């Protein structure tokens, strides 16, 4: 009765479970990017400060590390929620394939351990560990972040390209024939055919997201007239990382797409909006797929371009959606729209990176124009949109399978009756976390601007609370 009152009609809710997974992962991945890429930027600032005896760079590293402390905490807790959800939402996936993909998760766990340990040492080591040694504490964080990303991406890649086991028919306890996983080869599962490209693509995406986001913060300040050295360096370091990653990203993405040609042709068909198997397919931008063709899109004037991209030959044949029954097809428009958003933004960011690089090459200094700074301000959010769009391409494009070709999502989902409720709670909680995090980080920057270098924690009123000066005064530390 209580159950009915609280949770309404009792039925399994696949849609809610998917939304909850997508929301929590989509949230975590943004924060995770900071865990992967931010330490490298802090490292550059910190080393630069030590080498040139430059207090401005040191102060940047110190402030970034405090922001990172807040973000790491959010990353750690949202990540833990994900590991719970693997079981809470997808018990069918975990009980069948847990031991195939588990080793990657275990190695990921080790990486987290090392990351968390050295994060603790670095964040709390300011002014207490000799500077050189202190800055070196970032190195294990960077390595562990990269390794952790590899292993978790390996799990996701395995869902796209499952290998490293055999299925055997066994007769279950109730007399039904069940598939049982045997002959597991955990290393083959980790180093599946999709992991290399997916990992590189995600790794670069992390550097783009963080690089453009952090540079955007300083670009905003410069647009408001704070153009001192502190802000210039704060803009240059992250931007350098982003500008190196941006032009490589489309190349990696291209090869990731080519992998689909053979291994996940239906996903590729959804990306292209291709109803029937065809050769010499041309690329169409925009429009929507009405079930047979793309309506309202713009065809690029290179015949066979899509074929060429996917198969290296303008006459190449691409598999259409018609090769599989309708119930095995992903929702085409979602996949296609997400893919085009990602590629569009990715291409635009290459142009922006080229502008920055060209300016630097010509004049040994980054472009100072207002438009350049304005574009930098939007580049960060745009990179985040591309990141999410990329994941939607991969994840929705794999539907209706959770393990490509082997396990349907609907068979993996929990039969718990209240996923809509848990989804609603998650939405509220994550919104609260966001509000709290944004508040805290904004109050930090406000106090820095007002000239505080050490941020006091107001444990009690006995401590004088400084009045915060909100005027945009120039602070060169």
């Amino acid at each position, binding site marked *: 009765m209580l159950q009915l009152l609280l949770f309404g009609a009792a039925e399994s809710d696949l849609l809610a479970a998917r939304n909850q997974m997508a929301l929590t992962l989509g949230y975590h991945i943004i924060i995770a990017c900071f865990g992967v890429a931010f330490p490298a930027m802090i490292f550059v600032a910190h080393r630069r400060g030590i080498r040139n005896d430059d207090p401005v760079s040191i102060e940047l590293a110190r402030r970034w590390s405090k922001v990172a402390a807040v973000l790491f905490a959010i990353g*750690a807790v949202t990540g833990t929620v994900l590991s719970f959800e693997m079981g*809470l939402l997808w018990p069918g996936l975990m009980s069948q394939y847990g031991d195939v993909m588990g080793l990657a998760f275990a190695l990921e766990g080790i990486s987290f351990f090392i990351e968390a340990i050295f994060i603790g040492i670095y964040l709390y080591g300011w002014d207490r*560990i000799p500077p050189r040694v202190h800055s070196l504490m970032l190195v294990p964080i960077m390595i562990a972040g990269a390794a952790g990303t590899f292993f978790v991406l390996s799990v996701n890649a395995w869902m796209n390209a499952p290998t490293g086991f055999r299925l055997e028919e066994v007769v279950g306890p109730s007399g039904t024939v069940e598939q049982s996983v045997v002959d597991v080869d955990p290393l083959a599962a980790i180093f599946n055919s999709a992991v290399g490209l997916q990992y590189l693509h995600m790794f670069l995406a992390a550097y783009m997201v963080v690089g453009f986001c952090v540079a955007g913060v300083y670009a905003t300040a410069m647009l408001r007239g704070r153009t001192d050295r502190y802000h210039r360096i704060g803009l240059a370091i992250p931007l350098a990382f982003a500008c190196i990653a941006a032009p490589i990203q489309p190349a990696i993405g291209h090869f990731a797409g080519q992998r689909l040609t053979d291994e996940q042709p239906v996903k590729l068909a959804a990306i292209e909006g291709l109803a029937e198997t065809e050769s010499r397919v041309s690329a169409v931008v925009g429009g929507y797929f009405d079930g047979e063709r793309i309506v309202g899109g713009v065809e690029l004037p290179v015949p066979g371009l899509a074929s060429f991209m996917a198969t290296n030959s303008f006459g190449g044949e691409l598999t259409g959606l018609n090769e599989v029954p309708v119930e095995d097809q992903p929702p085409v428009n979602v996949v296609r729209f997400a893919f085009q958003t990602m590629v569009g933004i990715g291409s635009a960011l290459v142009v922006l990176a080229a502008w920055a690089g060209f300016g630097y090459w010509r004049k040994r200094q980054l472009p100072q124009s207002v438009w350049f700074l304005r574009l930098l301000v939007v580049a960060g959010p745009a990179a985040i949109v591309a990141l999410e769009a990329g994941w939607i391409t991969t994840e929705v494009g794999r539907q209706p399978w959770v393990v490509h070709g082997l396990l349907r999502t609907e068979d993996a989902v929990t039969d718990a009756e209240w996923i809509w409720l848990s989804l609603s709670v998650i939405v509220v909680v994550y919104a609260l976390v966001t509000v709290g995090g944004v508040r805290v980080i904004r109050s930090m920057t406000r106090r820095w601007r007002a000239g505080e270098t050490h941020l006091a924690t107001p444990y009690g009123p006995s401590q004088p609370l400084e009045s915060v000066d909100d005027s945009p005064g120039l602070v060169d530390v």
Partner: protein
Amino acid sequence: MDLADVVALVMFLGIIAYAVFAGADFGSGIWDLGAGNAEDGGPTRRLIDHAIGPVWEANHVWLIFVLVFLWTGFPEAFGAIMSTLYVPFSFVALGIIFRGCGFAFRKFADDLNSARLFGVAFALSSLLTPFFLGMIAGAIASGRVPIDGSGNRWTSWIGPTSWVGGLLAVLTCAFLAAVFLAADAERLGHEELTERFRRRAFVTAIICGVAAIGGVAPLLLDAETLADGLLGKGVGFMIVSGASGLASIVLLHKSRLAAARLTAVTAVAAVVGGWGVAQYPWVLVDHATIAEVAGDSATLWGLLISFGVAAVLVLPSLAYLYLLTDKSVLGTEFNKHGQDHESVVVK
């Protein structure tokens, strides 16, 4: 002992590490909750921040370690546990979010009101999270999680054993934390806080002992397999735990805080270890044994090898972190008045 048993053993060592290290962090949050209003609670809260700030994220990873070992080593059992215990695990997840964010946000809050709000989130969830984890342990130990995951999603985690588990979890966390905080305050030279936490540790130790003895009756009635194990093959652990508990009480009385830290850890580790031994060879008591639900042997080897890697890479780093924290090389500086160094405003 075959391969799967070794994996189960390693996983259980992870549970013990989590109970001890994260337990002390949770307990610190519980004391934070009871620290009093903003005026009086300041020094206590500063001490707590100082003590757990650098280590809590690392301590938290033991939980991930256990989860990963569970789903990789014993995938079916993991699926069953998560299905049946959906509700308490959801509460644990929420508790983990609020605790981590509350703690990290409070450190950088700029005014008293938001610090108070974040502090309450941190402290309250430090109380609820171990409680629900204890209830989960009780549900598994009393045989309420069937292997097909079809256990009742409400009644299976609120049986008598679960209440014992939840209560004991909260109490042991508070006990550990009080001992650790007393020792920390002593090292930092803060006499008033040392004395306060020494007294609290002393009292909690006695309450823990009473609760543990009182918990035997419900277990005998409600969790036969577990009770048999505890009084049978696990009895050595119970004796060690009881003796260490008594020793802690004596040492606390004599203000020998560094030594009390050791006995306190031993007492808690022995209770948890005793639970593990008592329910061996069951993963899900009365429903599935280690051998029945063990994953593929290649994977189990992989797990053990990765544990070896972890032991080589992680344990020394972890020891380094604890050493730095213990020597107060890390963290905010802390003087007798409980003012922290970072309150200096440099204009």
